[in-house]
């Protein structure tokens, strides 16, 4: 049973202030925001890695190979002459493998997003609807029953509501 403390903030700077203090004390924090606050939150939470690009690249290579195999193998196995062109004909190989490269790149990126971001999520996770509209929220994992301390820091920094979320 992990308890999460959710503090609602109106101002981003208050949230950053509280977050810095909590992180110094060794808590695990994350944020909810209605817009991407990546630039502001990055010095606090550290830079995240981006392994999706490896998946996209793998997808593109897979698509390219698939396109080449698709346009090369069936005509060779079931040859039907057409138009005086050879069976092993270069232009469709180029064009169709270009398309399949992009298709598989997109599909593998999609798979990567689903894998890495954890969406779709079927469990109920800590959330306040106000964080989707106009406020920001600071989520602190509270394994050690330090609710009073966390609440004190948040309220000092300027939080609106602070409450516990059990799940």
């Amino acid at each position, binding site marked *: 049973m992990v308890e999460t403390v959710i503090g609602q903030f109106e*101002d981003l700077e208050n949230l950053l202030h509280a977050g810095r203090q909590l992180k110094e004390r060794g808590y695990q924090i994350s944020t909810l*925001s*209605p*817009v991407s606050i990546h630039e502001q939150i990055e010095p606090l939470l550290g830079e995240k890695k981006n392994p999706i690009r490896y998946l996209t690249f793998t997808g593109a290579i897979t698509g390219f190979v698939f396109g080449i195999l698709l346009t090369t193998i069936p005509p060779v196995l*079931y040859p039907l002459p057409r138009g005086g062109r050879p069976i092993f004909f270069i232009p469709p190989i180029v*064009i169709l493998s270009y*398309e399949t490269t992009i298709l598989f790149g*997109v599909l593998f990126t999609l798979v990567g997003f689903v894998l890495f971001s954890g969406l779709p999520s079927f469990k109920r996770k800590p959330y306040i609807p106000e964080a989707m509209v106009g406020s920001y929220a600071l989520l602190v994992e509270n394994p050690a029953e330090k609710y009073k301390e966390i609440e004190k820091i948040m309220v000092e920094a300027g939080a609106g509501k602070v409450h516990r979320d059990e799940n």
Partner: protein
Amino acid sequence: MKTPSVQVNRLIMESKENSQRALYEKVNQDIVDTMTQSGSHYYLALGLSFFGFIVFWIIPWIYQLITGQGLTGLNTPSVWGIYLVNFVFWIGISHSGTLLSAILFITETPWRRAIYRSAEAMTFFSVLTAAFFIFVHMGRPWNFYWLVPLPNFRYLWVNFSSPLMFDVFAIGTYMTSSAIFLYFGSIPDLAAVRDRVTGWRKTIYTTLALGWRGTDFEWHWLFRAYTFFAVLIVPLAVSVHSIVSWDFALSNVAGFAETIFAPYFVVGAVYSGSAGIITLIAILRKTLKMEKYITPDHFNKVNMLLVALSLIWTYINILEIMTSYYANNIFENDILAYRLWTPPYSYLFRLMILLNSVFPLLLIFKKVRFSITLSVLISLGINVGMWLERYLIIAPSLSRKFLPYMWHNYFPSWIEISITLGSFCFFTMLFLLFVKFWPSVSIYEVKEDCGILLKK
């Protein structure tokens, strides 16, 4: 820090809100309201377009399926007519979303934020309409699955050397990619809508939003994946319309076999798509009361793009005519003379030049660019002109092929005109449904535009 767009300043100044939260709430409210509060005008428009779709497209098409392609005005040399013109036209319109969404995302242009969602939707729906037209033009469309390269028990594979097979791959990839692109950009907005609705709608949006909460983790991954989608979809859009142009350019018909066709069609596509966007956002602005979000400055920016594209389009047209004339190839001379000097095509050609090359030059003037009425008129003219351009490529070239004994004119029949009308009704219907069930202006992007400015 990104520079917010001009209209956001106006939004903030006019809104009299002095806190970021209230401003964000207003944005949220405004946009979710477009989905929940629809007046009787909306239902009337939706009903009319659905009725038009059924009466003008579905019923004549079923009649054509039962009776045969002979109901059209097609004949032996002119075997491609309005159906193919419409197909190329709708694929052309679809390039708007890709441009506005993907290219402007990569270049971090701020004025795309309020309009890119509807542009992406326009892309997806026009690709759907174009795909529908493939079925309409085929002689035996119930066998369409033979065009898909799947292993089967008859040991039959498709002909990968055929330009139509390139089409199948290109349009399939484009449809998939633009759907994914549209969906993934909308996930945070669907979550915003999820929080505001109740009942059966809440279930639908909860499923669609995939449990989005807005954590920094999720924003990070969304941004990364979205960047890759944008980067991949731009070369795809260029290749799709090039491949559609190669249906014509890989033949040896004199009016079709031009090397300029690939760039010509792509430029024409972006041109007609951007003109379509202007029409669409003007309608959205009026009917959804988005005056604060879609401002005359948006029209200004897209109009500047239209001027540039108009000049490129004019140049390529002149190129095509001049090189055909210079080559003095007897077959091309016949087609050129037929297209440029013989009525009725000569009148259509002059109308096309007027609508595509002359009127858009008015957009050089700042007053015209900022005026919404004039923008809409000019963009409607551009769309008509681009449809005429496709018609003037296909119909005269096939009517004057190599052997003069087989020359025969083409005139569309009632069923082709009806189905063309039905396609516009279909597109309108899809777009109206989109406006109702999907956030048509991107909530989080507009908020991002505002919020960076307000820092106490």
